């Protein structure tokens, strides 16, 4: 399935050459404090944010202690209170009337009795030490002891939980994810307080060492699916993970298709809803947008809002979205086809108006359409990049003035402006922008087909698109499920949304288990479906 991945697996992208993995990191800590400190400094190239605090512990036999931390990654209060204070203040405890404590006992004593940090890990080699240091923990080195302690003191500035920017809702919760993996997973745990919510963490990216979290609900998610996700994540062998998109492109089934096969979202309630249906969420530290696998086509037309509004309006809105999707995909192409190839199919009064408009236009329809569509894409992109105060002006200028001026100048016809505007507005109703992007690209292909073969071309294009879509799978689930293959039981939440009392079962295809939502007994796994 992962053809792309397999093709490129051997050539891992090495940004630097292998010297980063030099033996300097493969170094076991020595009992000498000075040596250890020197090694750490060297490894980080004497970075300015590496803060070293050397002090002494114990009386009368003084042990030299050093704490190392990276400025900005640690919560200094925690560190001060739980680490340094304890080491410095509890002097009396370290006294030993009989003489010096042997080093190992010192180490054990410090770890077990003195460090009141919430979590202490032991590092015996430099690699582990650096990894812990770079995670924001404080390293405690004791002279004479060849182990280092890392105390949990992660802190620093991270963004607080804010309102979602792209997926807002009227009646639902207004939280969105942040860049911290732990915060994000905690948002999920707050919603699903079941012990079956399991989180598997790993680090990916040889240089970036990004934390990845795979979250699922044991007993609801399909084991084969979980194994598949693990396998695909294991295959990723790169230097860097730049956001969840990198992971997406590595583990997706087929990245040559325009359709997105993995869903992304900003909202915790969407993630928890999907987890409860048996899907798996992949969190990436540093990105506020986790991935949800597997994803089918109709999911991209559902919003969280659907479940907070009443069912009848949700059904209506979903239909509107699907129809808008069709408008975006086929609108300009149908217009081109009718005007160029089949003007006999347009009612006469409309035709006369269109003919009047087109009298002065120097371009053929396809060129005009491409021009307008392209202009609109440029406007859209510009609107995103614009700084906010100027953004308003751009949209007004772009939409009204340019459109009006272009029509008056006789470069495009008003009908074309209307079609392009309708297409664009329709594309904004699609809740997930990855699907919107797909449609934006596809409609150009449709336009070209329409300009070559007219309605027949559009028909062919639709057949090609459908057969391509039908052949996709997202982690083993056919992409167009539950339409093709038709799974009647899952229709309750595909396009329609029946009221909650009717939705008794989970989507059968995803979890492949007969699970009852309302009366939650754990069901037996079903036999193989017709996949």
């Amino acid at each position, binding site marked *: 399935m992962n*053809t792309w991945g397999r093709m490129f697996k051997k050539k891992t992208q090495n940004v630097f050459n292998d010297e980063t993995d030099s033996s300097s990191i493969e170094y076991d800590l020595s009992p000498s404090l000075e040596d250890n400190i020197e090694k750490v400094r060297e490894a980080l190239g004497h970075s300015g944010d590496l803060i070293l605090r050397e002090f002494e512990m114990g009386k009368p036999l003084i042990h030299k202690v050093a704490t190392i931390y990276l400025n900005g990654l640690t919560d200094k209060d925690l560190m001060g209170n739980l680490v340094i204070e304890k080491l410095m203040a509890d002097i009396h405890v370290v006294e030993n009337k009989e003489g010096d404590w042997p080093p190992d006992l010192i180490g054990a004593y410090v770890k077990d009795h003195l460090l009141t940090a919430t979590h202490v890990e032991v590092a015996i080699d430099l690699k582990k030490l650096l990894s812990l240091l770079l995670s924001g923990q404080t390293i405690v080195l004791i002279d004479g002891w060849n182990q280092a302690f890392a105390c949990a003191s992660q802190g620093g500035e991270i963004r607080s939980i804010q309102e979602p920017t792209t997926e807002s809702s009227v009646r639902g919760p207004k939280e969105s994810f942040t860049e911290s993996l732990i915060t994000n997973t905690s948002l999920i745990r707050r919603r699903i307080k079941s012990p079956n919510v399991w989180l598997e963490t790993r680090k990916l990216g040889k240089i970036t060492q990004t934390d990845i979290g795979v979250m699922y609900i044991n007993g609801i998610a399909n084991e084969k699916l979980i194994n598949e996700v693990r396998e695909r994540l294991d295959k990723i062998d790169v230097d860097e993970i730049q956001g969840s998109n990198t992971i997406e492109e590595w583990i997706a089934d087929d990245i040559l298709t325009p359709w997105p096969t993995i869903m992304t979202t900003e909202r915790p309630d969407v993630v928890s809803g999907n987890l409860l249906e048996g899907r798996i969420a992949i969190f990436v530290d540093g990105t506020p947008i986790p991935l949800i696998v597997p994803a089918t086509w109709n999911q991209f037309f559902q919003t969280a809002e659907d479940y907070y509004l009443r069912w009848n309006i949700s059904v209506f809105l979903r239909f509107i979205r699907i129809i808008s999707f069709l408008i975006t995909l086929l609108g300009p192409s149908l217009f081109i086809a009718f005007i160029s190839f089949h003007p006999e199919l347009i009612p006469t009064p409309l035709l*006369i*108006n269109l003919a009047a408009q087109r009298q002065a236009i120097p371009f053929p329809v396809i060129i005009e359409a491409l021009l307008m569509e392209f202009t609109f894409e440029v406007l859209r992109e510009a609107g995103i990049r614009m700084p906010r105060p100027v953004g308003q002006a751009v949209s007004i200028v772009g939409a009204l003035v340019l459109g009006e001026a272009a029509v008056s100048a006789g470069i495009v016809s008003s009908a074309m402006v209307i079609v392009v505007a309708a297409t664009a507005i329709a594309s904004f109703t699609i809740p997930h922008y990855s699907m919107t992007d797909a449609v934006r690209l596809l409609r150009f292909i449709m336009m070209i087909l329409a300009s070559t073969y007219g309605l027949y071309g559009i028909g062919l294009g639709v057949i090609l698109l459908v057969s391509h879509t039908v052949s996709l799978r997202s982690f083993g689930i056919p992409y167009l499920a539950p339409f093709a293959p038709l799974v009647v039981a899952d229709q309750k939440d595909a396009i329609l949304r029946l009221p909650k009392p009717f939705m008794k079962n989970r989507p059968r295809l995803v979890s492949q288990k007969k699970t009852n939502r309302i009366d939650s007994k754990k069901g037996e796994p079903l036999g193989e479906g017709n996949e």
Partner: protein
Amino acid sequence: MIMKIFLLHKSYKIFLCILSILFISGCWDSNELQDFSIISGIGIDKGGDDPENRFRTTVQIINPSIVSGGQQAGSVQSSPVTTYSETGSTLKEALRKISNEAPAELFFPHIQIMLIGEELAKEGIDELFDVVERDPKFRVLFPVLIVKGHTAEDALKVSTSLRPIPSAKIEGSLQSSKEIWGEYPSTRADQAIMKLGEGSAAITGIEINGDVEKGNQTANMQEISQSTKLEIKGLAIIREGKLEKWLEGDPARGVVWVNNEMEETVMNLDCPEKKDAIAIDIGRAESIIKAKVKKDKPVITIRINAEGSVSETHCSMELDKDETIKELEKQLRNEIEEEVQAAIKTLQEEKSDVFGLGEYINIEEKNYWKKIKDKWEEEIFPESKVNIEVHATIRRTGMKVKSYIK
């Protein structure tokens, strides 16, 4: 998947070549709207006597910018339509020759109307419709009219107000006349073809009232009372493809009654003191035809159901009494029967069965029909007995019961 073919098979190169041929070589059917002359009306006249110019065709082409919301043009300078004419031995030839004069390729699918000159109609219109049926560009839903007293060319030249495209105006009048007055049915090309294939047909006519030359100018359109007008008038009986007779008035209305095409109309009834002094608005009408064969002779029964209400009186009648209404109903029945009778009589005289009554006999007694099919129009129809039953009801009297007239 596709990448696999690309990288693994050499045939992808051939595939790409084929693909590019498809896209590069051009779109054969692609046209630009501005490259079309949209035709709103077409007229066919007799051209000459030799085969080379058998037909003279006229096309009325729309000027879209004047017609559509081009109110910014202000005063109407140029005419909303233009006509061109040419002769040829076949209609297609004549139409294509017009391209010498017309500015762009003729575009037929939006024809609103087809006019046939009377002279040509007298000689035969059978063959005119083959091109309409055969060519995919002609859509068969437009009405066909025969021009009475003038040529189709002249009729297409007359400018009209209220609907700047004359063909649209003609079609509009035809439509509203059929719906509201009911004297003349509208004959679509496909209906005409069906009827012509089987026997006789009835096609509505159109007349030019006024001077043709004056009608040819936009000034005509700007006058408040136009000097030259187009009027729907006359019902032409076509027998064996040739125009035989014009019907008007009662016989024409009778045809409409029988054909089940009467929608709304007005019937005038008599007062005790005055003739034709009460107007009844007929709201609904229906005709049911049944045929029987008795003693080897066909008997056809036409039943007409009509429903109306009193809409105007010129005398004082006691409309609040049931008996008065029943009296009026009786009169109404007689009036309708007269009209239908007039139609049947005239058509039997002309030996033309424009109603397709033969089909009803076929439905009832198909074996009998097979025997008499060939003789139907000539011999049997003129002699057949046609019974007319009319059921007329007057339901209401409008907003008032008795009139203020004393």
